């Protein structure tokens, strides 16, 4: 379709000889559909474009074509659209996105599809506003969202949606409750607090700087004026911006413990009270500037931390949002008389559902009819589409890409893979890893010690110099805040978990990251882990003059209808080269297939079966085929054409993965219940030195235990279903999840793409996370070791203390946020699409 991309839309003034659709800009086919626009007959490419253009003209909105900056999208033909839209008139469907604005007035939030320029917004606004009964319409060009308000006595929502659809755009209900969650409100409030603190800080600095510079040259009353102004501007910061710290401290005190908010609160309150006292008695120093800056910078650190946490939670929420709200159910299978729109919650196992191209799979199930490809990237992180044919499993949340499919629903609701994933992630997030617990405990002790130290210092300085004592205590409380200590680990873990999830690695246990970073031994299962775990074409050996490609094409043609694993493996291998069409196919169970291609009679199957057609002796090459593989012959009436060898092939990325792990100094092993010879063969192929074949389950356990006794930290990589005991014995277990079995997986981490590359990414991120946590803790410790003595000895003013402490917190959080960048950039297009099509295609 590159021709379309290069094609620039002809402006309306150009003669319409140009062979492109006037509406959508796609090249015109031979038959064209004419519409009279602004007195000139224009050609459109299809009935859909014609209908849309005609609607625009009929409503007097031709100037759309003058103002638009890009051609419109091509409207998809949807014959049963009016029926589907009727569904949105039901109160049950409406309750999530429609609210009553006034008596008899309702307001809906819609997400518009297909807007390419500002003229589209104009067009839709004009059209909707002209509808009978519509009170107000407001479209936000930046977010593609529309708010429509209508009188429910005079029109219906489906009429509005239909009007939008008639213009060639899609309008889907936009669920406000789901998207504008409480988290967004939290973030907004925090931003406001940050803004107030920042604004107050800047202004208070303006008063403070002259006082520093004048150095006593100001008259007392000007100084007093400055103090009062500072107090006024600091008041909102003290009373409102700093509220989260007071609340946190109060929570801590009620629970009879001391957290990091306690010294912060003490510092803010002490500094404020002493400054206020100094203001009204007109004696001593004031430090309003320090208070404002302290609060501002601390809120900045909190904001960054919230960003990291939100991002992790959002990627999880995105998963939960994947499932559409409505599905198209066939009323009777296999003799359907029609299909109806039903809410996904009403689907039951055994129902048959039609998936149009672009639709999201509503539940787990199996393909019954049709051929297509599915995009499972949101679930597995695997960007390539997965081919789907009858018999293949579909996972709820995947997107159907090309052709229509009929699926049989097998699992719904809580039993689906998607719910399983969400549950696993939830569990991981409620578990704190050991290092985080340790840091928490350390921070608590640190705070307790700090409070004692502050009291002691205060008393000592009171004896030496009573005027300085309060400021030294304040400086000490402020400078030694344990935030860096408390924030270091959780922020790093949240950022790393988020990065992992974007690589398609699901962390299901809190400790997994930490342990993976420390792992010394990587033990792989063989079947399904290092190998693909199914039949795959390993080699093609042409026996006649025909080339390798040609042999594959013939074989794929014969096997095109085969359900046998061998046949499907051959078809899969030949997917790139076009299969030849075969006729008169006849399958002989257990032996092979016979058929005609281009007039030749061909057989594929066991060598003996093929020899039955041509009477030729079995080819010598069969002797060289090892026990590991299955040999399949292809032949015609005059002799053998080719031999195919099939077997459990190594994963393409396995070698690179093993090599990189070894490069990192890790020991790799293969541990399998398979025959010794084949395990050793795989190990040799991959360069793995330690291989253990023919291991019974208890022997596998013993193998792992032996490694652990020697001090090894074992990471076990398996398929997660058959080898659960060994996975449990290893310190960290990693399962290669693929498709439907994800839900049963019992492992600390799941590689959802089912590819070993993700393991490398996980190891890399885990190591990086460990490094960042160590850096953060080292930095926090070093900072405190220097700052505390200085503050105790009275060398730190509150301002310097505020800067020092805040910078240390910010450094820690910013350092942790670097982890989020390790993941490949998210694909925003798919993200947006998922949000849109989550509501059953075009509404």
């Amino acid at each position, binding site marked *: 379709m590159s021709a379309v991309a290069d094609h620039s839309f002809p402006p309306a003034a150009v003669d319409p000889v140009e062979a492109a659709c006037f509406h959508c800009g796609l090249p015109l086919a031979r038959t064209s559909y004419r519409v009279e626009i602004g007195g000139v007959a224009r050609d459109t490419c299809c009935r859909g474009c014609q209908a849309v253009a005609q609607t625009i003209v009929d409503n007097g909105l031709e100037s759309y074509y003058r103002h638009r900056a890009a051609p419109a999208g091509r409207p998809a033909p949807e014959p049963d659209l009016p029926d589907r839209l009727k569904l949105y008139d039901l109160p049950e469907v409406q309750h999530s996105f429609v609210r009553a604005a006034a008596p008899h007035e309702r307001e809906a939030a819609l997400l518009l599809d297909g807007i390419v320029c500002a003229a589209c917004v104009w067009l839709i606004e004009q059209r909707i506003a002209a509808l009978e009964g519509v009170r107000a319409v407001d479209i936000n060009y930046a977010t593609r969202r529309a708010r429509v308000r209508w009188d429910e006595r005079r029109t219906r929502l489906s009429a509005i949606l239909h009007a939008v659809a008639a213009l060639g755009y899609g309008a889907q209900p936009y669920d406000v409750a789901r998207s504008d969650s409480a988290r967004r409100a939290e973030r907004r409030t925090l931003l406001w607090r940050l803004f107030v603190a920042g604004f107050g800080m800047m*202004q208070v600095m*303006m008063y403070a700087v002259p006082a520093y510079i004048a150095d006593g040259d100001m008259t007392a009353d000007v100084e007093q004026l*400055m103090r009062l*102004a500072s107090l006024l501007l600091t008041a909102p910061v003290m009373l409102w911006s700093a509220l989260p710290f007071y609340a946190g401290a109060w929570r801590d005190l009620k629970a009879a413990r001391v957290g990091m908010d306690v010294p912060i609160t003490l510092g803010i309150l002490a500094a404020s009270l002493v400054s206020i006292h100094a203001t009204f008695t007109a004696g001593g120093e004031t430090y309003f500037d320090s208070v404002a800056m302290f609060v501002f910078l601390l809120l900045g650190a909190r904001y960054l931390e919230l960003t990291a946490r939100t991002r992790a939670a959002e990627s999880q929420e995105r998963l939960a949002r994947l499932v559409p709200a409505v599905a198209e159910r066939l009323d009777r299978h296999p003799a359907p008389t029609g299909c109806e729109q039903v809410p996904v919650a009403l689907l039951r196992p055994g129902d048959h559902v039609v998936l149009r191209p672009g639709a999201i799979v509503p539940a787990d199930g199996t393909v019954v009819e049709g051929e297509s490809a599915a995009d499972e990237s949101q679930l597995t992180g695997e960007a390539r589409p997965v081919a789907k044919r009858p018999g293949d499993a579909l996972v709820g949340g995947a997107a159907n890409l090309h052709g229509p499919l009929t699926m049989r629903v097998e699992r719904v609701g809580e039993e689906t893979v998607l719910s399983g994933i969400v549950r696993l992630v939830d569990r991981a997030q409620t578990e704190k890893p050991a290092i985080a617990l340790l840091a928490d405990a350390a921070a608590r002790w640190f705070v307790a010690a700090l409070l004692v130290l502050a009291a002691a210092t205060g008393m000592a300085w009171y004896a030496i110099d009573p005027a300085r004592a309060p400021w030294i205590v304040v400086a000490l409380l402020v400078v030694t805040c344990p935030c860096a200590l408390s924030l270091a680990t959780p922020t790093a873990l949240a950022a790393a978990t988020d990065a992992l999830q974007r690589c398609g690695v699901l962390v299901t246990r809190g400790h997994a990251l930490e342990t993976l970073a420390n792992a010394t031994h990587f033990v792989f299962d063989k079947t399904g882990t290092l190998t693909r775990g199914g039949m795959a074409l390993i080699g093609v050996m042409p026996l006649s003059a025909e080339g390798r490609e040609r042999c594959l094409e013939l074989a794929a043609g014969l096997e095109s209808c085969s359900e046998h694993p061998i046949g499907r493996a051959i078809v899969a291998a030949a997917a790139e080269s076009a299969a030849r069409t075969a006729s008169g196919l006849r399958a002989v169970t257990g032996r092979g297939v016979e058929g005609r291609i281009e007039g030749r009679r061909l057989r594929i199957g066991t060598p003996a079966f093929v020899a039955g057609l041509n009477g030729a002796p079995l080819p010598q090459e069969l002797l060289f085929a090892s026990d590991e593989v299955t040999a399949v012959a292809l032949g015609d009436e005059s002799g053998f054409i080719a031999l195919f060898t099939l077997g459990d092939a190594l994963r393409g990325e396995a070698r690179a993965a093993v090599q990189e792990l070894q490069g990192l100094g890790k020991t790799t092993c293969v541990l399998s219940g398979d025959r010794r010879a084949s395990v050793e063969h795989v190990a040799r192929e991959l360069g793995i030195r330690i291989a253990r074949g023919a291991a019974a389950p208890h022997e596998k356990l013993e193998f792992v235990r032996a490694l652990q006794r020697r001090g090894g930290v074992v990471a076990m990589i398996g398929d997660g279903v058959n080898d659960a005991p060994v996975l449990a014995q290893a310190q960290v277990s990693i399962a290669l999840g693929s498709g439907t079995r994800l839900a049963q997986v019992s492992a600390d981490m799941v590689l959802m793409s089912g590819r070993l590359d993700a393991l490398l990414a996980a190891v890399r991120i885990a190591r990086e996370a460990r490094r960042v946590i160590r850096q953060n803790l080292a930095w926090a410790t070093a900072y405190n070791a220097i700052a505390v003595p200085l503050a105790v000895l009275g060398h730190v003013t509150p301002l310097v203390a505020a800067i020092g402490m805040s910078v240390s917190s910010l450094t820690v959080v910013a350092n942790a946020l670097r982890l989020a960048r390790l993941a490949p950039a998210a694909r925003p297009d798919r993200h947006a699409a998922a949000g849109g099509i989550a509501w059953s295609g075009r509404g």
Partner: protein
Amino acid sequence: MVRPRLRRSVEILYLLVPLSVVLVFIIGAVFWWALRSGQFEDLEGPRHRILMDDDQAPGAD
């Protein structure tokens, strides 16, 4: 001690400092109102919208 020459220029501070405090609060309030009333919600649309006439005769180009 304040030098005599400085003293006169300092007097203006009695006006400027309270004024700055008032200004800060006004600016804060205006910003708060702007955010609340959605002035920053759509930064793209209005500048296109102003160019589109609703009552132009068809085929005027």
